[in-house]
């Protein structure tokens, strides 16, 4: 059986394939509850990661010609990314479980030889309590790194710490997929 091809870093110059409009998943006219997701990517020294590509995938509402369900955004000089999209609904998990609504997020950057995969759930959603991934993380601080917080009406915020911070700030939970 041939093995899957090896990954390599996206490097610092990936912006050659950047199209800023990709950060707006509603640009083709999709209908639904519009929300924004903003956050910073931060390294182990507490410094902003200013050259990352943050990719977002959501399985619901279903992707169609008007809703790509995928977005990509650069981090800026403050390490911030900003997506405009539709709020996802719950999606099936394994077995008969439902997963709480979430975005799948991958961070690619110089210094990452392969992408780091994480998620953003929504604070105060009762379905988080029964989500199999969230329930499997015992440490509430670590679990909290996967939960976006409200930042105004229909605005959500989540920071992504690639590594435990210099003052012991909690590292984001990353997933082995």
């Amino acid at each position, binding site marked *: 059986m041939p093995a899957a*091809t090896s990954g*390599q870093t996206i490097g610092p110059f990936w912006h050659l*394939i950047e199209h800023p409009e990709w950060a707006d998943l509603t640009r083709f006219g999709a209908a639904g509850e519009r929300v924004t997701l903003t956050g910073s990517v931060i390294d182990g020294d507490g410094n902003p990661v200013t050259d990352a590509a943050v990719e977002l*995938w959501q*399985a619901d509402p279903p992707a169609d010609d008007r809703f790509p369900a995928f977005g990509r955004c650069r981090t800026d000089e403050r390490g911030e990314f900003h997506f405009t999209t539709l709020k996802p609904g719950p999606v099936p998990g394994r077995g008969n479980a439902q997963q709480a609504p979430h975005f*799948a997020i991958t961070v690619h950057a110089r210094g990452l*030889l392969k992408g780091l995969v994480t998620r953003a759930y929504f604070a105060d959603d009762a379905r988080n309590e029964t989500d199999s*991934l969230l329930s499997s993380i015992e440490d509430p601080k670590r679990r909290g790194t996967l939960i976006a917080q409200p930042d105004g009406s229909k605005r959500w915020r989540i920071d992504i710490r690639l590594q*435990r911070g210099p003052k012991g700030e909690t590292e984001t939970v990353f997933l082995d997929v």
Partner: protein
Amino acid sequence: MESARDPVPFRPYQPGTQPPYDAAAYGSTHKRHPLENLIRLPHAITETTGPQFSPAHFPPIRDLSVLNGKAALGERIIVHGRITDEDSRPVPHTIVEIWQANASGRYQHPGDQHDAPLDPNFRGEGRVFTDDDGWYRFTSIKPGAYPWRNHYNAWRPNHIHLSFFGSGFAQRLITQMYFPGDPLLELDPIFLSIPDEAARNRLICKLDISVTEPESALGYRFDIVLRGRGATPMEG
């Protein structure tokens, strides 16, 4: 509890074929790699489905060697290959994103301050789709080697960046294609970060005289294998 309706997961990567997050010789990894263990996530619909790009919304850029009708400087090349999964099934109609430095080893990017000339006729972005049988093809120029600041007198080997999506988010692959016979490869911490030597060497394309165009462009073959969907159970 598992159910027969569960989506078929992608198989784990074969040992040694993927680089680690923490690669001591590649300085930029030091403050960007997780210290905690990753949490294993059994694949469900979020991981087994992925974006599908339509050429109508994302128009192809098949020839990087010409801009506004003017030829870029450098050695013109044709790169082609086939994208399959680990079960040798072709991956049709999938997007391939391409970016690279110019023939002098300089990116058309404000962050690249290497003292080498920009080429007004070269931007360095491409985008193609595979055909019904998984084949892709683009035309470009051979990128130059360039220095970087990882260590004293560090130089990246000639390479082209490539990005693949496949059919599921867990199949996402970003990699670099290298050229045969490049003596910088054995000095490059990024290339050498892949533990398995055979896997590493599969990132080196091969001269392909069958697609080389006489009096015009050298042809290279670069095949890609994406993760297979597995009956192999994930390790518990």
